[in-house]
């Protein structure tokens, strides 16, 4: 669950270059006219631009609070910290380390993920009671994350190449103007047939996402709010509200204490160091 909403890493620069090349060919055929751009091309171009704007953050750290609310309005709370590392090698993905602080019975449990582009991610879990580091299967993309309405696949880095795209329309989203783009997961084991994302035209930030289940009916809606900008470039939402329309449950995720470029190294994100994580 690489940096919950930061979608980007330089690895995509390779992918980006190919896509931009494809776009420029299109542009040539269209005599520079955007009119010839298909909805698919426009959707991809929006994703590529959003991606480009979030390159170069290097590493980050933040504290999260997760409030789970069931159908009866009863709540339970999780507190965790996430460290993320942007990886420069274009053939591998970002890395993230999640450490749980609350509830107390899972305190010290740590989760390490090495995101991949097309292959399955590498994931390890550290169980403090046994001092055991366990390599776990990453096939479980669509399962709930610690009992919440977020699935693993909602939380891991949103690589451009993990979806195909289709621009639907432009429309107002609150005070802003948004692109509305459909995206279709191409990675294995997704729980979704598609997602519809509202992206603001000014800063290319995701504002809202509708998730459609395997039967293509609306399952969940995610709303991103309280955006702050870091290092004069990188936008991060500090509140993520996920509502499940089918179960009536919801999860609110709030971020605090974002720090960037704290000097993390590859070595901090290895399985043999996982048992030292705190």
């Amino acid at each position, binding site marked *: 669950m690489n940096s919950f909403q930061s979608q980007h890493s330089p690895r995509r620069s390779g992918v980006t270059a190919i896509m931009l090349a494809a776009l420029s060919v299109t542009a040539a055929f269209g005599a520079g006219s955007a009119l010839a751009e298909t909805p698919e091309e426009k959707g991809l171009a929006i994703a590529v631009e959003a991606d480009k704007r979030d390159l170069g953050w290097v590493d980050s750290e933040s504290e999260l609070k997760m409030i789970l609310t069931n159908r009866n309005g009863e709540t*339970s709370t999780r507190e965790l910290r996430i460290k993320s590392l942007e990886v420069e090698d274009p053939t591998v993905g970002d890395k993230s380390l999640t450490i749980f602080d609350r509830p107390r019975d899972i305190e010290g449990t740590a989760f390490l993920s090495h995101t991949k582009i097309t292959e399955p991610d590498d994931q390890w879990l550290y169980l403090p009671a046994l001092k055991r580091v366990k390599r776990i*299967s990453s096939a*479980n993309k669509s399962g709930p994350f610690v*009992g919440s309405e977020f699935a693993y696949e909602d939380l891991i880095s949103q690589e451009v190449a993990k979806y195909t795209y289709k621009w639907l329309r432009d429309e107002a989203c609150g005070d802003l103007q948004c692109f509305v783009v459909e995206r279709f997961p191409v990675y294995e084991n997704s729980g979704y047939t598609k997602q519809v994302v509202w992206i603001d035209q000014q800063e290319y930030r995701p504002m809202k996402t509708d998730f459609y289940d395997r039967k293509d009916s609306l399952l969940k809606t995610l709303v991103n709010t309280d955006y702050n900008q870091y290092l004069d470039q990188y936008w991060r939402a500090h509140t993520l509200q996920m509502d499940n329309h089918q179960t009536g449950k919801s999860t609110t995720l709030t971020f605090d204490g974002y720090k960037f470029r704290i000097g993390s190294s590859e070595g901090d994100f*290895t399985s043999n160091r996982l048992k030292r994580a705190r």
Partner: protein
Amino acid sequence: MIFGSDKGRLLKGDGNVRASAVAGALALSAFSAALSLPNVVQAGDWDFSGSVAGELRVFPNAPAFDEQDDTRFSPSIAVEPEVVYEWSGGDDRITFVPFARLDAHDDNRSHVDLRELNWLHVADDWDSVIGVDKVFWGVTESRHLVDIINQDDAVEDVDGEDKLGQPMLNLNLFRDWGTLSGFVLPGFRERPFRSNDARLRGGLPVDDDNATYESNAEEYHVDFAVRWAHTFDDLDVGIAHFHGTSREPRLLPRVNDDGRVVLVPRYDQIDQTSLDAQLTKDAWLWKLEAISRSGQGDRFFATVAGFEYTIFGLLDSNADLGLLAEYLYDGRDEDDAPAVLTDDDFFLGARATLNDEQDTTFLIGGIVDRDTQSTSFSVEAERRIGQHWKAELEGRFFVNVDDEDLILNGIRDDDVITLRLTRFF
């Protein structure tokens, strides 16, 4: 987790206290050395946490042996606080974890231990631990074959997952070609055994006050271990060697001063080389542990190999179902080496994880001897209650036990159901 350590079931304390004292002194001197460093003037962070657990063990059957009390309901309480002091931005850390249990019936199960008291220092490409710590190696579930650094706290449970703290100097080097770990282990912890009148004590009482050692240094023998671990894409591998005092004692029959036959623990010097590996392919985890050990009769080989396959989102729900199967082989000669439950056995298990807000989990598993069909199996369930509590229910059952089975026959009537309620703070 499910049944691993089969062997021990009586208890002992003396050597443990002495080893703890050595380790404590080690950690304290490390601590004062650390504090006297000039760069450690700035204040660090304290963190207090821990748990208190109330437990009720229920024994449905009368015990098999006359000396055992016919205890049917046996309550106990255990406390395990954790104090952590961290400085240098987390690069230096002192951890203190004492443990104590008070058991209403088994005097030996009422015990205290120093689980951890150590100074961890983390640098860029190495880290070190000085003091008492716990180290786990391995990948399989039915037996923790390669896990050798710590002694079993065998009075806690029969699953081999509770460990006594081990005094150590540990250095880990993180390199491109893997992680290399070296351990110097001064001070040996004797295995605790259950009281003579307690349930789960086995066929004969163990006289743990008169343990003998192959080494003249006895529990002060300094043991060594080295391990290399690395990840190759889907494959996680560890190779290790241990030289020193066997954590498993042989239990030798003797006639004591009262004319009774008792078992006296004997700790041999051994050399053990081990391999553990896991291949992770989609929903399949392929697991292997193997050891070759010398020092207890002829060199022998033992292995645990199997898989864990997970069905994610069972029947369109959020629940996952893990299916586990492992084969266990142990080629030791029980005339010269400690008795072992799993010489030629199959393990089958299933784990259901509901992935709900309470982290509800169910586990069932059984080990069957291929030759005698003697079977031990367990059923476990756990769930969080509110933000601070956890409830656990465990049942361990011994069925179809063969008269010749040294270990299971001694506990054949000690089926036990445990209800545990833990408060975390």
